[in-house]
């Protein structure tokens, strides 16, 4: 613990640079925007040897993506499973000191001004003594130390942090379990590598931060959404007790702070995320915005002019499907022959929300005018059938479904969240989240004016080619990875907020 080692000599002159890509509930086991991005990245950048280290729940999922030859899965960190940690027990003296591990984690991950370095030191201890983690957390001393640390956090009074609620013993026990899995994730081994590429400022940063501390390997953090913001959104909407909400959001904030503090480069996919990241304390000099990109069709097919509105996305509270249904209902009052097609599965664990959408669909009497089409493996094809593409999310980074709409030359009506306003500028309409009337009026306007819709679609197609092309996105990551892999100090990379 303590001193960080310098960068080791690189092997780059001899072989392809190795990039350890750490993921969290996404690639290669779950379909979705982040997974698609990972897939494009590793398939396009064949000059690197990709090592994928996913963090997954123990649900026996099969891989959803084929891994090409230069990509390998170098292990899998299963959380909330029954697997035992690897061997490696601390000596008695170290064990005595280690009984403070749960207290260090709770104090510095959940404390508003917790010490990120203390967390990293604790994680490094976990890596050195994996079996010690379990014995510490299963001991009465560990639990007692944890309660002491938690009480300190709950006693904090910082105006912007509000007054922490008083957790009960059950909430405390659940938090203790979460911290155990944080420690177990830190204890998981990582292979020798040249660059660490983390795909979210959360759990997937844990093994990478430990690796960086032990070996001095440079660390790049790409944020598609903003981890902390999404944790807060989830906590707000799931109606949990104040204590559970506090624990979930503070853990997310703590993980993000450690990830930000240890990243050499933070590359959000949109400027809006960068503002959040700066608000959370990242040095702006570390930030390099790299927009997502999409491969563009040369000439978009003409819109079908069947008054069809298509939406693509998971059925999830973050996508605010309720608002989408209300937009459809209001639109149908003005354009009775319009039809809405929604493609996308119900998010796992959000089945209740899925049922609420079906109930609202029935209550609004939408019938066949709004159809849930289920998952699709051809989102471009789905969008091609549209006259207008609709999105009602309350949180987005830079959504692929909007880029897909622009790639197919279709106009977009969307809520102005995350990077959407920057993307849709001049090629669609943007309204406030939840403003079903404004969204419906925009849809009605475009359905009634197909020529206007067509012009906006063409402009979107052109804009995609200029700013959000897949080639530009891949080139950006290639430059970044090569610069970092070849040992150039991060400040030498041309970074900063995109103009």
């Amino acid at each position, binding site marked *: 613990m303590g001193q960080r080692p310098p960068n080791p000599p690189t092997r780059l002159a001899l072989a392809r640079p190795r990039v350890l890509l750490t993921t969290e509930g996404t690639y290669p086991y779950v379909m979705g925007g982040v997974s698609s991005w990972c897939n494009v990245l590793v398939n396009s950048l064949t000059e690197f040897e990709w090592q994928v280290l996913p963090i997954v729940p123990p649900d026996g999922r099969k891989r959803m993506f084929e891994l090409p030859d230069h990509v390998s899965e170098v292990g899998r960190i299963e959380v909330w499973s029954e697997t035992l940690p690897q061997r490696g027990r601390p000596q008695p003296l170290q064990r005595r000191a280690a009984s403070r591990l749960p207290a260090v984690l709770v104090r510095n991950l959940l404390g508003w001004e917790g010490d990120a370095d203390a967390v990293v030191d604790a994680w490094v201890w976990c890596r050195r003594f994996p079996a010690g983690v379990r014995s510490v957390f299963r001991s009465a001393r560990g639990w007692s130390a944890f309660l002491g640390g938690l009480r300190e956090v709950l006693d904090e009074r910082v105006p912007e942090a509000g007054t922490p609620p008083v957790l009960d013993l059950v909430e405390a026990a659940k938090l203790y379990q979460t911290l155990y899995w944080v420690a177990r994730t830190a204890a998981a081994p990582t292979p020798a590598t040249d660059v660490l590429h983390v795909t979210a400022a959360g759990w997937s940063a844990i093994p990478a931060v430990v690796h960086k501390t032990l070996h001095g390997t440079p660390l790049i953090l790409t944020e598609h959404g903003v981890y902390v913001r999404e944790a*807060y959104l989830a906590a707000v909407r799931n109606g949990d007790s104040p204590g559970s909400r506090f624990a979930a959001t503070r853990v997310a904030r703590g993980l993000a702070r450690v990830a930000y503090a240890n990243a050499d480069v933070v590359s959000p996919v949109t400027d809006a995320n960068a503002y959040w990241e700066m608000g959370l304390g990242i040095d702006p000099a570390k930030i390099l915005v790299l927009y997502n990109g999409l491969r563009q069709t040369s000439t978009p097919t003409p819109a079908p002019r069947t008054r069809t509105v298509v939406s693509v996305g998971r059925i999830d509270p973050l996508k605010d499907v309720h608002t989408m249904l209300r937009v459809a209902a209001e639109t149908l009052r003005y354009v009775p022959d319009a039809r809405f097609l929604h493609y996308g599965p119900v998010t796992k664990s959000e089945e209740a929300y899925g049922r609420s959408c079906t109930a609202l669909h029935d209550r609004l009497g939408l019938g066949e005018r709004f159809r849930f089409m289920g998952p699709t493996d051809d989102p471009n094809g789905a969008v091609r059938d549209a006259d207008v593409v609709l999105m009602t999310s309350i949180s987005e980074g830079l959504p692929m479904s909007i880029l897909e709409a622009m790639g197919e030359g279709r106009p977009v009506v969307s809520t102005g969240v995350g990077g959407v306003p920057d993307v849709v500028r001049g090629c669609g309409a943007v309204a406030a989240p939840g403003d079903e009337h404004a969204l419906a009026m925009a849809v009605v306007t475009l359905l009634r004016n197909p020529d206007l819709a067509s012009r906006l679609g063409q402009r979107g197609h052109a804009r995609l080619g200029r700013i959000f092309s897949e080639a530009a996105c891949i080139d950006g990551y290639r430059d970044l990875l090569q610069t970092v892999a070849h040992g150039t100090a991060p400040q030498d990379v041309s970074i900063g907020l995109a103009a």
Partner: protein
Amino acid sequence: MSEVGLDPARARLLVEARLGRRPQDMLEAAVVLEAWVGVPAQRALAAAKALMPETAADPQPSVGRLPPPSSQKGVLLEGAAFVISVIAIALWAAPLVSSLGATVVRHGLMVTLPLTIALQWGLRRRWLDHPHGLAQLADRALLLLAGALATVGLPTLVLGPSGMVAGLLTVTLTGGTILIRRRWALVYVAIILLATPPLMMGLSPLPVLAAAAAATALAVALALRTSAMPAPSSTGQWERAVAAGVIGIGLGLMLVLDRTVSWTEGTVPALALLPATFASFWGGYHLRHLERAMPRAGSGIPVIGERTRGLARPPLGVLFGALGRLLVLAGVLSVGLMALTPWLGSSARDAGVLLGFALLALATMLVSLLESMGGGAWALFAVTCAAAAEVAVRVDGTDPFSGTGLVVGGLVAVVLVLPPVIVLLSRPASTLATALWIP
């Protein structure tokens, strides 16, 4: 997009209107302003910081949501199936002895009981007690088949006919555990009941036992096939499964080590097990309430403050309720057996044997509880001591009453296991956090 005036008072109203309460902190306020009011990130963060009060409010007490209890559907059916199986297999003893001889059957049962209990405990700990366990077991059909063949083959090679009896009975009884857990209890009962008349009619017992074992294995294969689904790569830990298996061997040995209890005098010894079996099932069934009592004991108890009195009451209440049920029912049924069945002879009605079986049932319940709360090492120690005590009684050879070994072994196990169980249950939050929720 609509522009929103963002003076702190208005921003606070908007946030509180959306949340229906004060924001937890400035980040929650910023998220609400951005996601539901449409304020861009930079302004949302600045406004959120401004709207937070300078003076701290009183801390809000929180009561966590209790985890949902696991499904108890089919537990009674499982219990009934178990009891029917015990009675039916008890009926097998006489025909087996008359065909194969008392020595072969005695040796066979001395292997069968420890081996079966060990396999049942190991299987439960590794797979059957876990939500995805059956699905995962379905992926290991070849392992199960090899295990079944080894269970029959190895004892046969070593012990001859008694080994074959032991192997076939072990496959049937262990397979039955899987079928019962898969809710195929009726299939298992049907197999056992169908095998009983041919044995009673004097047919050669080994082919009948082989047919029962084969039918059970086939039923297990079919049952698991229908439960196949994507399963986690890990459920129970091998280390704990092996430890549980060793504990099972110890408990099985405790059952057969007492030389005053004969397992070959017709149906009688097995029927003497019935009071303890019923009682153990009732007591164990009551223990399911611990799943709720443990978290409920800590629910609403703030981590700040010294209010810890009374925490232990709900879990200890469940424990003593289970102990009481087991002892009372075992006592009542034992007295009933002694009073109402004079034709069974002394070995089924001997008070010492019945007391020994009741104590063994009590020890088994407590050992199981301790093992499930992470006290596997101590449970193993206790069972080893109890089995050693029984061996000592057996070597000493001066049994003052029938069932002395069972009584002594059972008492040793209970005395060693009950205190740690009480200690663990009297600290429910700590036990929940450290032993139950950290696998």
